[in-house]
């Protein structure tokens, strides 16, 4: 009797109503809109009245090449930003934790600072740096007799120019996560390889396998972030020229502004599904391969 009652009364130290403020806010302001999105995406909707039209919005979204281009571009965007960040951040993190480099604290701040600046500000700054005629980037390339481009005006390039700026702004997070991973590797592993190998052996056989958890985190975070991006595209190209750099979120915004609320919401649901279908398996796959140090 005694033990059980102590246990029961200890449970009373953690009352369930502590969940209440958080759950209530979350349900009202996130879950309800999300669930109702599934219904509204099946309607022609003016915000005042919704007429049920079945899957017409989805058909319109997926059959109109100018809407579905957003789907394709979002996938390219998420894939390339997460891949590039992962690939570039590891050597950068190795460098910023290495013994031979001076002023590491300074460099860490320098790489990290863009993370904190408003994305809109970064987007505008780069759209001016990337101006075709007078922009600093092309002026510099011309001075060096290198090929130069209309970074944001050329429809074939615009999306990739935005991806470059996204990587520039976000690589600080990936680098910091990798640095944490590298610093967590026990010194023994390095000592073991010190005798029979140079830097490359250590990089290939110690660092890469042992920062695997960091790699998974970075890929997941930046992939999800890439699918959800909006502001940098909006600030730099507005999805243009034409539709060349439209991504799902910019299409959703344009349909919203044009007053096609049902169509916009259908795009939103497509985005939910896309995130769930891609990220959940990735997550499960990664957590099955995590390592303990």
């Amino acid at each position: 009797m005694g033990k059980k009652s102590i246990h029961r009364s200890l449970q009373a130290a953690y009352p369930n109503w502590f969940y209440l403020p958080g759950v209530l806010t979350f349900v009202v302001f996130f879950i309800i809109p999300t669930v109702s999105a599934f219904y509204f995406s099946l309607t022609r909707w003016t915000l005042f009245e919704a007429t049920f039209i079945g899957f017409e919005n989805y058909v319109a979204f997926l059959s109109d090449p100018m809407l579905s281009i957003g789907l394709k571009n979002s996938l390219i965007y998420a894939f390339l930003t997460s891949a590039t960040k992962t690939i570039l951040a590891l050597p950068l993190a190795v460098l910023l934790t290495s013994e031979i480099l001076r002023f590491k604290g300074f460099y860490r701040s320098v790489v990290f600072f863009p993370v904190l600046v408003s994305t809109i500000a970064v987007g505008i700054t780069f759209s001016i740096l990337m101006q075709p005629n007078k922009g600093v980037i092309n002026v510099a390339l011309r001075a060096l007799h290198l090929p130069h481009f209309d970074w944001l005006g050329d429809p074939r390039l615009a999306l990739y120019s935005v991806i470059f700026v996204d990587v520039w702004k976000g690589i600080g997070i990936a680098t910091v996560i990798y640095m944490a991973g590298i610093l967590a590797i026990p010194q023994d592993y390095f000592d073991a390889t010190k005798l029979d190998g140079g830097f490359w052996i250590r990089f290939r056989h110690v660092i890469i396998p042992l920062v695997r958890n960091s790699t998974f985190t970075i890929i997941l975070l930046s992939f999800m972030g890439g699918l959800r991006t909006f502001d940098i595209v909006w600030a730099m190209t507005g999805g243009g020229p034409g539709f060349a750099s439209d991504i799902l979120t910019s299409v959703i915004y344009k349909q919203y502004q044009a007053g096609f609320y049902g169509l916009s919401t259908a795009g939103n649901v497509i985005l939910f599904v896309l995130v769930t279908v891609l990220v959940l398996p990735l997550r499960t796959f990664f957590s099955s391969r995590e390592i303990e140090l």
Partner: protein
Amino acid sequence: MKPKKCSLATLAVNILVFVVLTIIFIVPFIYILLMASKSSKEAALLAFSLPAKNLFIRNLMDVIAYGNFRMFRALINSTVLTVASVALIVVFGSLFAFVAQRKNDRVASLAMGLLLIGLMIPPAVVPTVFWLQKLKIYKTMFGMVMIDVALFMSFATMIFRTSMAGIPRDLDEASFIDGATPLRIFFSVILPLLRPAIVTVVVTSSVNIFNDFVGPLYFLPGAKNITAPLTLYSFISQFSTQWNLLFANVVVISIIPLIIFIFFQNQLVSGMMGGAIKG
């Protein structure tokens, strides 16, 4: 430890890193400052050059005074939004994480699972506008605060939960047996020990909420509701060619994140690494 070598190779690596990182990461910021110091004619040339005459202060003043000191309104709105949201995120999130981590039963995993959805799925835009209208809090600061609490709470709760695991259960059990109420335990035992996690949550969410562009764009329209990042956006659509003032605007809205950065750099970095912690 081996003695520090100062070989030629080391020096070369150091110089190379300096040059590359400076060009890539510092030059754009220098450019912002240069442009913000020019006259509008000079800035129109878009060149990376020193201004003929330094008009930095005057441009800043012009930007701040523009449109009946709209910038003040924006900074005040952004600050109110940030402070209120972050306060609620900390209170709601830590209460949640406290119970969820300690009980660790079916209800807890269900509740955490619910919050996890928020980490993954982006918000449903138009339905959110619709429900805000139904609740009569569309385009109000209150509505925007609650949206931000809902959107940023998941991440904060994860961090609190991980941090809770490091606080020995004996502490709260002991004070419970001593007769303390759950709230008393929470506020006088748990919260002080959660301090590092709180700092992390406060710093990371305030930067994210202060810089948030999409939320206010959708849910807080209207001139009197303008927030810091939106000043810039309305600026480009109105003065496409006054680059000097545009960049001065960039400088003004970057000051607060810069201050946060200077004072809380370490917490920020550890907060970003918190993303590495699995829920």
